[in-house]
């Protein structure tokens, strides 16, 4: 089945130690998104790629970066995780305005 896959499902990292979360898709969607969802809150868009074009939200901290080496893969890099970065990180894809599909998320814990 076509889908959006996030790895790992759970990630524990040390305070200040760089961490990378990954997302892959088999839908051939041209847009990929990263959302951050903290406990009992709504998902908040961090950035997205429209094809190869990277678009950062104005209030996304510099600590968060992303890479999209090809259509299928997208990575979220957190350069120096703080305790406030503990959250569920959700990857999503779409083809222009249709077919918005989320992965199952990576729950990040910072110790």
């Amino acid at each position, binding site marked *: 089945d076509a889908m959006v896959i996030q790895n790992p499902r759970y990630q524990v990292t040390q305070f200040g130690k760089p961490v990378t979360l990954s997302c892959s898709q088999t839908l051939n969607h041209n*847009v990929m998104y990263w959302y951050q*969802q903290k406990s009992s*809150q*709504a*998902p*908040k*868009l961090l950035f*997205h790629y*429209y094809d190869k074009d990277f678009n950062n939200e104005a209030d996304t901290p510099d600590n968060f970066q992303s890479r999209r080496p090809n259509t299928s893969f997208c990575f979220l890099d957190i350069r120096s995780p703080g305790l406030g970065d503990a959250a*569920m990180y*959700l990857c*999503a894809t*779409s083809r*222009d*305005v*249709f077919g*918005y*599909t*989320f992965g*199952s*998320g990576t*729950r990040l814990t910072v110790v």
Partner: protein
Amino acid sequence: GIQVEQSPPDLILQEGANSTLRCNFSDSVNNLQWFHQNPWGQLINLFYIPSGTKQNGRLSATTVATERYSLLYISSSQTTDSGVYFCAADAGTGFQKLVFGTGTRLLVSP
């Protein structure tokens, strides 16, 4: 930017009951979607509904774009309907850049 508000924030139902969830948005939208987040965190797209009415089984949704609100109807609720329902909207052009509402947390008890 666009503001999205949902009500009620919490809802408890007995299995078999019907419910209506509401989403208000502050600007005209070209994209309005409803999602269900299950207890394990997975977000499932329920409806893409910038206007009009759609139905999918026990769920249906109506968006009145001119009055800037959308409703999600759940009929004959089941325990598997439990979770958080999010409305998300986009007022921009081109691809989807969704702003999520604060959600309605639904608990369906047997």
